[in-house]
């Protein structure tokens, strides 16, 4: 996915002089994950700016840049290292348009590598999407495929609203899973073409309108159609769910897999249609379960699909513990087995 993200940044920098990248080590180094590789060389150190080491300062500076008409793309080096910028994010970035009666919008993209599974030492594997998703005024998106890495980042940068763009560290070196089935169609009523695993499945972008390969913010996609039960997931857990669906075939279960892609705005339509079709749902993410995004998903599915549910909506998530050290993280992360265990508990006997 790193290549797709890099390409998206490069294309945006090329097409729009207002786009500026800034963050720690994004210049000569190309970022610790190399997502900004070569950008300073091509566009100069002013447009791909190595900042001092201070995340609140970075985001605060980006706010001022956006107020002057630029479209800053901020890189936070790791998820936990975005926390120093939390006040700037919650009290300013998320609220600026609202507090100025629509006058001052902040088209800032905040790229945050998140999640674990890469052997990172403490503070390098956090999943903080729940904090962002609960903050009105932010869009929160996360790609799970290479194509969406490109398409959603384009859309985020094109958006006139601030977007927290969560990059699953585990999938940085991924190519799209060959065994994933072709994208199933979205809920027909939604009216936009499904964005699939290839960049060709473009839907309407936000902000400055759609472009080739731009994935729509606010649209989930059914990665795998199924009739038995519906797995709802996003980001780093998509491959787990696809693998679980594959494995479940052996038990005669045909699992649908929904990739949310966008946590805010939330695509109720696609999710509810997919759940109603099966009557059973499991939500999967690696962040801690308590108060996680999975709670919101389970709650709203419960509200909206109550009479279609044959079993409670279950959650498979990280435990309610600080992220473990590398040697133990495998126990914490949702696994195919844990997903299948949850599916097995969906009251099939009734």
């Amino acid at each position, binding site marked *: 996915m790193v290549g797709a993200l890099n390409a998206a940044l490069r294309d945006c920098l090329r097409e729009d002089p207002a786009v500026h990248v800034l963050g720690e080590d994004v210049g000569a180094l190309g970022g610790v994950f190399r997502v900004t590789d070569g950008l300073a060389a091509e566009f100069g150190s002013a447009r791909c700016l190595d*900042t001092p080491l201070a995340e609140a300062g970075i985001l605060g500076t980006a706010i001022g840049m956006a*107020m002057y008409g630029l479209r800053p793309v901020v890189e936070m080096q790791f998820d936990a290292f975005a926390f120093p910028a939390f006040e*700037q994010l919650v009290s300013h970035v998320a609220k600026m348009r609202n507090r100025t009666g629509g006058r001052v919008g902040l088209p800032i993209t905040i790229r945050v590598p998140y999640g674990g599974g890469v052997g990172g030492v403490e503070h390098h594997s956090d999943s903080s999407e729940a904090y962002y998703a609960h903050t009105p005024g932010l869009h929160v998106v996360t790609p799970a495929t290479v194509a969406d890495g490109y398409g959603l980042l384009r859309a985020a940068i094109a958006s006139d609203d601030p977007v927290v763009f969560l990059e699953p560290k585990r999938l940085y070196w991924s190519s799209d899973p060959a065994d994933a089935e072709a994208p199933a169609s979205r809920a027909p009523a939604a009216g936009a073409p499904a964005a699939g695993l290839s960049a060709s499945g473009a839907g309407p972008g936000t902000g400055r309108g759609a472009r080739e390969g731009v994935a729509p913010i606010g649209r989930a996609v059914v990665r795998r159609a199924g009739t038995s039960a519906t797995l709802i997931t996003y980001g780093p857990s998509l491959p787990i769910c696809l693998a679980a669906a594959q494995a479940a075939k052996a038990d005669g279960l045909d699992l649908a897999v929904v990739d949310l892609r966008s946590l805010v705005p*939330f695509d109720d339509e696609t999710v509810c249609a997919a759940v109603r079709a099966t009557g059973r749902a499991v939500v999967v993410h690696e962040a801690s379960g308590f108060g996680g995004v999975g709670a919101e998903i389970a709650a709203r599915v419960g509200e909206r699909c109550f009479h279609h549910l044959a079993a409670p909506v279950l959650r498979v998530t990280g435990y309610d513990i600080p992220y473990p050290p590398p040697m133990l993280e495998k126990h914490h992360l949702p696994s195919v087995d844990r997903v299948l265990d949850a599916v097995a508990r969906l009251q099939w006997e009734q």
Partner: protein
Amino acid sequence: MTLVDHSTSPDLVGPPHSHGPRRDAAPLLPDPEPVRVLGTEAAAAFDPELARDLHRRLVLARRFNQQATTLTRQGRLAVYPASTGQEACQVGAAMVLRPQDWLFPSYRDTLAVVARGVRPIDALTLMRGHAHCGYDPYEHRIAPLSTPLATQAAHAVGLAHAARLRAAEDPARDERLVALALVGDGATSEGDFHEALNFAAVLGAPVVFLVQNNGYAISVPLARQCAAPTLAHKAVGYGMVGRLVDGNDALAVHQVLSDAVEHARSGRGPVLVEAITYRLDAHTNADDATRYRSAGEVEAWRARDPLTLLDAHLRARGLLDDAGAAELARAAEELAGRIRAEFEAAPEPDPATLFAHVYAEPTSQLRAQAAELSARLAAEAAEDPDGDPYHLDGDGFDADALTADGRGTEGLGGAA
């Protein structure tokens, strides 16, 4: 464009202190004796018209503070953090800026906002509780009053930096813009202050940071806030120029800030100015200042009221007489009356504004929530036709209605 001089990369075979830019500290350090004009020889040389203009604005600003405080007592203003005693800083900050410049005020800086041309009612919208920011930041080049302390300092840096980037791309469109960020003495303790100053210095951004050191952060005196020789001494730690000024000396404030702004404008980097002043009123109308400072202290500072000091100067130099003072008093009353009238005429806020500007386009969830509220209000209105007249069918927040007719008044300057 060179953002910072990187030619000073480590002298590899030289002494190890070659790390980073080496520059002489001496020119960055403030004179620990604050700059004064009043009572010095420089006062005689000061432009008399400018001094009179400053004085006029101080008089109006003082009246504004009084009127706003009265409105809190009448319950027409939820809260008001008066800048009484700090008017020289407030007025000076606005006056040294050119139209292309930007102001980044703190929550106490309503008067700087008004002095830059915002209608009083709009500058007070936040404190009235009708909306968050009552003026259009782009129209006036003033960021919203910032309640989270020191956070807006980084915004000033980013904006000034962006303007330089744009100017470098297209020198013809160079605005030669300066951003002025206002913070209090207490706010200098926040990490955001530190980060903003450092970014400004590293980027060489044209920003002036004005610390209004009024001696207190709510109840906490400066001695418990910071142990530095002066707050202006912080500048050297960022490699920027630090200056100290008597913040109750309107002429000195104007001079030091003008110099600082031109320093930044000319590309010589940011400046940190500490103005030593005093808040004569309580923190806000809700505060009880007697809990943490003595009446004697306040009285001693009242003797150094910036208005009194400038008044005395003008009278001594024959630039003000009783007739002039009476005329000024009338203008001040006219301003107060206008504020009251604006309050009378101000419309109630529209609940539709709750949902209209969370995003450029409301999400489906927000549309549903807006519809729910709309239906509820409609039902309530049906039950009680004399009740709340609002319903949610419009785009909401009619900021034009708030700012229209504001153009001619131009804040304190045009109140005559």
